């Protein structure tokens, strides 16, 4: 149980850190308005476009990774134990 917690926490913090840095680069047009959630600049190189994709995937990895290990895996184990016990 504790191992699953550490895995979920590692995904949440690690992917969240990468998302925060990339969002600070690409989705923070100014420090007066929306930060980390602003709109990315229109003219982007291929590297920039890849970074946007990577940024979005890291955001969802942080959320669904934590959900997977904190909710999904324990739930699956409970269901498996229940099925096996029958």
């Amino acid at each position, binding site marked *: *149980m*504790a*191992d699953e917690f550490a895995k979920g926490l590692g995904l949440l913090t690690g992917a969240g850190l990468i998302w*925060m*840095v990339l969002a*600070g*680069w690409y989705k923070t047009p100014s*420090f007066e308005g929306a930060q980390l959630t602003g709109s990315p600049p229109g003219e982007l190189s291929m590297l920039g476009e890849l970074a946007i994709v990577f940024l979005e995937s890291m955001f969802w990895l942080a959320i669904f990774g934590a959900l997977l290990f904190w909710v999904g895996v324990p739930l699956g184990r409970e269901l498996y134990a229940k099925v096996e016990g029958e």
Partner: protein
Amino acid sequence: MTDDNSDDTARTDGTGIVPPDDETPTWRERKERTTGLSRLTYEYFERSRREDQDLREESDYVERDVLAFPVWPHELIRNLALTSFFVGMIFFLSATLPPHLGAPANPSQTPAVILPDWYLYWSFGLLKLGPLNPDLAIIGGDKLLADRTYGVLANVVVVGFIAIVPFLNKGSARRPVEQPFWAAIGVMGVVFAVFISALSIKNLVPMDPHLLFDLTFLVPPLAGGMAYAILKTMREGYMYDLNRRYYKLRPPK
């Protein structure tokens, strides 16, 4: 230690077999415990407890002996690892997200929004408890005490309560499950601090201000009650008994 248990001489290297009592798990139970961290915690505590016990049973043991791990290498390796991590994180963040340097402040112009620093929002929120203040009026209809005076007195109440707590509870608990009531008091205080801070910026919170005002005083007792119930339930668990057994062997003071 030359008396009856001479066949069981104290070994302080931690390899001694723990004599079974009613709380010691059997070898079968130990083998069946497959979860990693709880097993590691158990073995750590059991080994430390055994080392303490062996040292105490030596004839030249005096109470002033400090029973702990040495600073080098155990404590320093751990502390250096933690320090390196946080220093590295500071370097990483300052390199990747350099802070924004705004325009210099203009001392001749009052800013539009005036707020204290975020860690003083709770005190700022105590100034906004107008509906709670008693209306003591004299004949002219003027209030005897202004709302801002009551706000300052509310600060005295909160700070006074925090100052009294160490005299009510000496803090002998090592973890919240050992004293669920006081842990619940702490949870109540933290939740109240969060809500009173939100109340201080109620014009920025997307919620009805009256509802927020009511929640400020209704949610903290609820959260405290939930924490109390959860901690009371956790006391039934296995690790709590194990830790209590370990700490029972500690000197009383």
